[in-house]
């Protein structure tokens, strides 16, 4: 099962989200109200850790476990980056969760988050349905 390794990385990521309380509704409200450094500390250490690792991968031309060249991630700009992210931010403030935390909230015992996740899937589907009528 070649996909098991991704499950294991998911467990580690989910554990960090849960034990770091980044999937807690309380922490997200506190963050948006600028009443604690905690969540900002997570972002301000996660991003440099990722950036430093990527620059080392680039510098030493690391290969994947199968010996393939590592493709550096690229993100293209479109106006949806602004419009969509604003909409997502509203939802983040309501649910206290972005997509990753939906899964960890369910695992941590907030079974009702299944309803929230289902609604998010419907939201994604609705975007797909009306994509061609929306400004890109």
């Amino acid at each position, binding site marked *: 099962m070649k996909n098991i390794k991704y499950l294991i990385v*998911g467990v580690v*990521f989910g*554990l960090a*989200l849960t*034990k770091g309380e*980044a999937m807690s509704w309380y922490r997200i*409200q506190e963050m948006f109200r600028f009443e604690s450094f905690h969540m900002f500390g997570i972002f301000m250490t996660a991003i440099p850790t990722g950036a430093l690792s990527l620059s080392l991968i680039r510098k030493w031309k690391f290969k994947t476990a199968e010996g393939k060249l590592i493709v550096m991630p690229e993100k293209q700009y479109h106006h949806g980056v602004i419009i969509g*992210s604003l909409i997502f931010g509203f939802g983040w403030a309501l649910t206290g969760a972005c997509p990753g935390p939906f899964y960890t909230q369910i695992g941590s015992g907030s079974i009702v988050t299944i309803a929230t996740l289902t609604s998010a899937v419907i939201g994604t589907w*609705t975007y*797909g349905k009306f994509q061609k009528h929306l400004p890109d």
Partner: protein
Amino acid sequence: MNILFAPWPWYIAGPVIGLTVPLLLLIGNKNLGISSTLRQICAAVVPGNISLFNYDWKKDSWNLFFAAGLVMGGFIGGVVFANPKNVDISSSTINYFKSFGITDLSGLMPTQLFSWSAVITLKGFLMMIVGGFLVGFGTRYARGCTSGHGILGLSALQWPSLVATASFFAGGIIFSHFVLPYILSL
């Protein structure tokens, strides 16, 4: 308190989260991104004739395994080794919650707001169903969420991801200050 049950400080949780970026690239050239799992579910369950969902989703099934891992990580961290104490939020945030009658601050989520009986109330419907919908709609519109843009995109120094991250923080901050108080007082 036993170290297994204690929450992780930000300087532990942050670097572990950041390390998933190189880890996923090294084990299989995969880009961290979780909102794409919502698209995957659409493609697998109800693709219709919508172009966004008509692709070979099985080729990207790695991220569904990743999502399953997230559920397990949540279970290990939130049930097996659950922190017996309340989340250590600031006293001003506690007072803010109390001003809306949210007094039970145990666990990681307030059960007063997030429960099956609350889903059918106006407040609960707005917070869970409308909130979830906005997350799913917005992240796909932006082609990424906190992980894909905020962690991976920024780690790779992609400027569109900086625009995305600034926008979803702006959305959350504006909403928390100007709209959420009205919903919490329902």
